[in-house]
């Protein structure tokens, strides 16, 4: 036996197409304010949100993911059978197993794809983009469908005035494929479990529900100010690191698409980065709320639909959330 183990030559990757799905039901602040004991003006001022979208019973996680994924494939000009991997970032696939990704791959006809979910909460999308990019670069797959999809309303306490007006539902997807030139930069990421109390579930399968079947439904709990403080103090540095890893400087960034957590956080990070007025900043949160792993593709989709950005521009993405975890990378707009 003289044969040697062979691996493909490393190659570049880029985002080839993007698709989104926004739930049909628009929920303005007026619908939530009274129940929460808050004013519409206060919600708008403290979050930048004027309305958000809640999924109906029919708009399930697989339904929204397939809709977004199908659009991304069409825009990329890639057939389902060309997909070698499906990576779904989600925190709200409450079925737990089988994974969301395997069902989406099946429904889309991606019969040749490996499929799995990624749990990195509101940082899920840039985590999954990093994985998808590396799968393509290493030759594990020629094309990867990356999905960010959430039905946060399923784990929301609709009477909690600190979360109920912030979070919402939706899905976004991108197709990543090989490229002659670099289209996705290295990821700058990390996790800080010492800050886990800032945001997470208030209850658990075990021991809570196992020992007491009448225990309350687990919901998302958050000390918003802790997330705000951490994100506004730490994320600008992570964003800078992603730009450096991509071999660029901040003044070469044309588009900034941060996770749409809260307009105050977006403003704080932009201020710390000192972004010039010529940089297009995604502010989709105003009409979408915080859709966790779906927020970055939804926000980029809106900028593309409104022609505020165009293909080939350099965009800096950053996600951050429960963990606490974070990830950032520079990509070329598809």
């Amino acid at each position, binding site marked *: 036996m003289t044969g040697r183990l062979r691996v493909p030559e490393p190659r570049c990757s880029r985002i080839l197409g993007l698709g989104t799905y926004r739930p049909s039901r628009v929920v303005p602040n007026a619908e939530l304010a009274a129940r929460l004991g808050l004013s519409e003006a206060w919600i708008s001022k403290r979050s930048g949100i004027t309305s958000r979208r809640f999924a109906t019973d029919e708009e399930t996680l697989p339904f929204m993911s397939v809709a977004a994924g199908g659009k991304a494939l069409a825009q990329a000009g890639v057939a389902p059978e060309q997909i070698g991997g499906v990576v779904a970032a989600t925190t709200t696939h409450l079925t737990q197993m089988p994974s969301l990704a395997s069902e989406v791959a099946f429904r889309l006809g991606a019969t040749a794809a490996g499929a799995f979910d990624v749990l990195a909460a509101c940082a899920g999308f840039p985590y999954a983009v990093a994985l998808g990019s590396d799968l393509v670069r290493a030759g594990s797959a020629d094309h990867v469908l990356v999905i960010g999809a959430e039905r946060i309303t399923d784990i929301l306490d609709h009477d909690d005035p600190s979360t109920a007006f912030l979070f919402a539902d939706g899905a976004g997807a991108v197709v990543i494929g090989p490229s002659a030139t670099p289209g996705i930069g290295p990821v700058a990421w990390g996790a800080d479990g010492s800050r886990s109390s800032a945001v997470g579930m208030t209850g658990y399968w075990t021991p809570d529900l196992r020992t007491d079947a009448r225990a309350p439904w687990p919901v998302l709990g958050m000390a918003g100010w802790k997330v*705000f*403080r951490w994100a506004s103090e730490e994320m600008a540095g992570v964003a800078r690191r992603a730009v450096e890893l991509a071999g660029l400087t901040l003044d070469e960034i044309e588009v900034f698409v941060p996770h749409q957590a809260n307009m*105050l956080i977006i403003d704080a990070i932009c201020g710390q980065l000192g972004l010039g007025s010529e940089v297009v900043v995604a502010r989709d949160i105003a009409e979408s709320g915080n859709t966790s792993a779906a927020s970055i593709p939804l926000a980029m989709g809106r900028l593309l639909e409104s022609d505020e950005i165009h293909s080939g521009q350099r965009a800096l993405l950053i996600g951050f959330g429960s963990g606490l975890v974070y990830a950032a990378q520079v990509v070329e707009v598809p």
Partner: protein
Amino acid sequence: MSVFTTDDLRNIMRSSADEDAPVSLDGDFLDTRFDELGYDSLAVLEIATRIQQDYHLPMPDDAVDAMTTPRDVIDYVNPRLQDLSA
């Protein structure tokens, strides 16, 4: 700067106040809860951040978490300021 007075706190609170919902800090406000004074958790964080910057005094999350009234802030800040200047 080694003593943090009620007036110092009042000035910081006034500059952190919600301009749409002016609150009176003229009387005895030290033992009224922040939420009753119109300061939500982000506003309390803003007060803590100002003190951290102006007095170079670390204000960790746990300390901010425990500040429910203005007096809690005074009681946290003063002994530590004295330690810093000692």
